[in-house]
């Protein structure tokens, strides 16, 4: 099956060379291979250059507000767990303004796939520091350099309880597509953090800069079921700025929120008819 069916055909808004083109292509490829009916897919995005990816889809979708894509996606999934729900947004969106939701979505282990186009900058607002900007980075809002430690989304996700934690590179769409595809089929909360360069506002973390540092975990026989090893690999760049592993850091199997919730386990609440008068009367009786 081709991935064309998932494409809206709308012209992307991104600058030429933006990493998000590669991300879009990788998601489409993954969907094409999975061949999920497009009416069963809901893509939820936030606000940012990256979140404008929603316009590329011919599926159902919500292009929400800044930082809130995870709660919106969670609501969709809780109401109709039969849908394939994919969240996609930026580093500012997910690790800055939406950081609380990120942690809680991870610990809930709802069956969502969360794709973050991490360019270590605020692109849409023309280049301010983001929560993943590295110390010392000069941006419009930090002309003397960033002074706060960057968030490590990978180790944060693992410690928060995410059950699938991966990092991809938009310059390698085939590898990325594999990570996304496995993230979608994974049962549980899957984070795919993607190094997706902003060619316009981030002149530090460029394609070249990244290519010099990245290597694939698969090539080193990393065991993603080993949480301690996963932390070690997830923090490698923090300790040694010359190496940045890509691939699947951590994967485990935990019960889904949907399987534990006493209502959702009995099937989606959407489509259920309203209660009968007799049912309501039975409830009222409790108060007599």
């Amino acid at each position: 099956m081709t991935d064309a069916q998932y494409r809206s055909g709308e012209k992307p808004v991104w600058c030429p060379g933006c990493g998000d083109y590669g991300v879009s292509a990788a998601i489409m490829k993954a969907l094409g291979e999975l061949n999920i009916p497009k009416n069963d897919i809901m893509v939820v995005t936030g606000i940012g250059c990256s979140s404008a990816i929603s316009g590329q889809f011919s599926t159902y979708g919500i292009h929400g507000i800044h930082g809130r894509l995870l709660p919106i996606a969670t609501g969709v999934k809780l109401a109709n767990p039969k849908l394939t729900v994919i969240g996609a947004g930026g580093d500012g969106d997910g690790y800055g303004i939406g950081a609380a939701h990120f942690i809680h979505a991870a610990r809930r282990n709802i069956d969502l796939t969360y794709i973050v186009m991490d360019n270590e900058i605020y692109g849409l607002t023309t280049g301010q520091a983001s929560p993943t900007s590295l110390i010392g980075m000069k941006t419009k809002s930090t002309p003397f350099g960033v002074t706060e430690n960057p968030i490590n989304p990978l180790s944060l996700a693992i410690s928060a309880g995410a059950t699938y934690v991966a990092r991809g590179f938009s310059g390698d769409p085939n590898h990325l597509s594999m990570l996304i595809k496995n993230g979608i089929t994974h049962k549980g909360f899957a984070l795919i953090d993607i190094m997706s360069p902003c060619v316009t506002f981030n002149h530090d973390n460029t394609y070249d800069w990244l290519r010099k540092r990245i290597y694939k975990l698969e090539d080193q026989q990393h065991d993603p079921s080993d949480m301690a090893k996963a932390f070690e690999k997830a923090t490698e760049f923090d300790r040694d700025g010359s190496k940045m592993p890509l691939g699947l850091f951590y994967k485990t199997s935990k019960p889904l929120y949907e399987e534990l919730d006493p209502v959702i386990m009995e099937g989606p609440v959407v489509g259920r008819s309203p209660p009968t008068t007799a049912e309501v009367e039975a409830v009222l009786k409790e108060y007599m």
Partner: protein
Amino acid sequence: MNDITIRIAGANGDGIDSSGDLIAKVFLNVGLNVFAYRSYQSIIRGGHVWHQVRISQNELHGPGEKINILVALNQDSIDLQSAHMAEGGSVIYDGSKSNVDALKDRGLNLVNLPMLDIVLKNGGDPLLKNVVAIGAIMKMTGIDIGVFSDIIKSKFGKKGEMIVNNNINSAKAGYDDPAVKNIMELKGDGKKRYMMDGNTALSIGAFASGCRFYAAYPMTPASGILHWFAAHQKLGVVVKQTEDEIAAINMTIGAASAGARSMCGTSGGGFSLMVEALGLSGMLEVPIVVVDSQRGGPSTGLPTKTEQGDLLFVSHASQGEFPRIVVSPRNIKESLYVGAEAHNLAEKYQCPVIILMDLYISEHAESINTFELEGIKVDRGKIATKSDGRFKRYEITTDGISPRSFPGTPGLEFIAPSDEHDEYGNLVTDFNAGIDKYVGIRRQMHEKRMRKIDTMLKEEKGVFVPDVSNADAEYFFVTFGSTTESVMEAVELLSPSGKKFGIISFKYLMPLDVEKTKALLSGKKLIDVEYNFTAQLAYLIKANTCIDISHRILKYDGEAFTGREIADKALELVSKW
């Protein structure tokens, strides 16, 4: 005597609330009208709390003023409550713990009931003290002690015989204690009545209308709704306690987009966090119901006290303009219907509906004779079934309402964007921003959304106008939401005054049918009554109708608005008119 008020007072942790509930239940079960009101504090142990039950053969609209029977569980309760005693009222106290010397010359009936002693003989649970007092109250008011046994058996039957017997024996001991004398005969009509608070009624109404999703972050006084849904989720409602109120409303938007009737609830502080997403629901045209149960503000304010200070806030919250409906139930019974109606209106007009409750209506309980459930109909609004070509989710229609579709339906896919968009949902804000054609689309889209207000005013006949009672009166109280009940009581109290008072009460506050509202208000002598400092309803009325209501009765100390204080102030205003 046909209208008595019983207050039980003690410290947090003394079981004051459950005792208050039991007292109410006793009188409810013999067929009397009951109104229960409590005063509590933002602490879990210690301090001073009370629960009050007013009982009458007539329907009640307020918590009662003076105390006819006080159960004082500690010295504080005697010291702090004695000022509120009715003439000749009774004080039940335990002489081994409290001293009532200060009350000696006030003509009160002082009942020295050895609650602690009796408890020690009946299993020793200190909370049984309250039960001893309940037995005494039943003797004093002429209620058969068997009524209590029946309640305890159905309430604690599952917990075992010992608990049941200890309770019944304690109550009997209180009933039979020589210090306790019968002082009145309260006769019920034997009819069965419901008894619930506003949060419960609202929740049941929402459930009845098919609400399938409720999200909230705990906050007094809205937490009762979360607790109700959590306790009843097996009826088929997904209940989510979220990380914050931002998540609560955004999840609600997600669930509603998926096709479930969805609601979230909070108090003003949490509503403040929800504001951005409120606009999102307006822009995406996703139907949601948001409950704001107000408490005293600003900021953390009065967490356990009431206020109507959020009216203007919820009416205008969030950037830009979009249709919204604001409704404030005027009594507990109406809260149930509003819980249901709100979901119909949200889905018909694809906009947020805000239910404005307050601590007073959310948390006090009342007896209710009947609910007319037949009136609850479910109308899910326009839903698309097919599309020729690409689905126009935001189709420009004459009534402003565009049929919606739910994910899962083949052929009706669309992306709902928070940016301004065209009929398909394509953004008009990127490449197209500023280009004539798209400037036009923006105009059309904005008008399409705003047109829904005209449509609802046209379709919902008589809904967006206030109700008038005593149309031939000389003076009219103008009020909204829960304060309406207090005003009703005031009108009853004013009837011997010779001046005739009516009520113009607002249930729906936004939108307003301006012409009809204006017609109802103009040429009348109006007194605005609301629970805030700035007369927000009067402001809203003035903004809509240019009618200035300068006579005002306002309260903002957090305590219940009594009919008496409204009546007294009204007479004062009228005397200077």
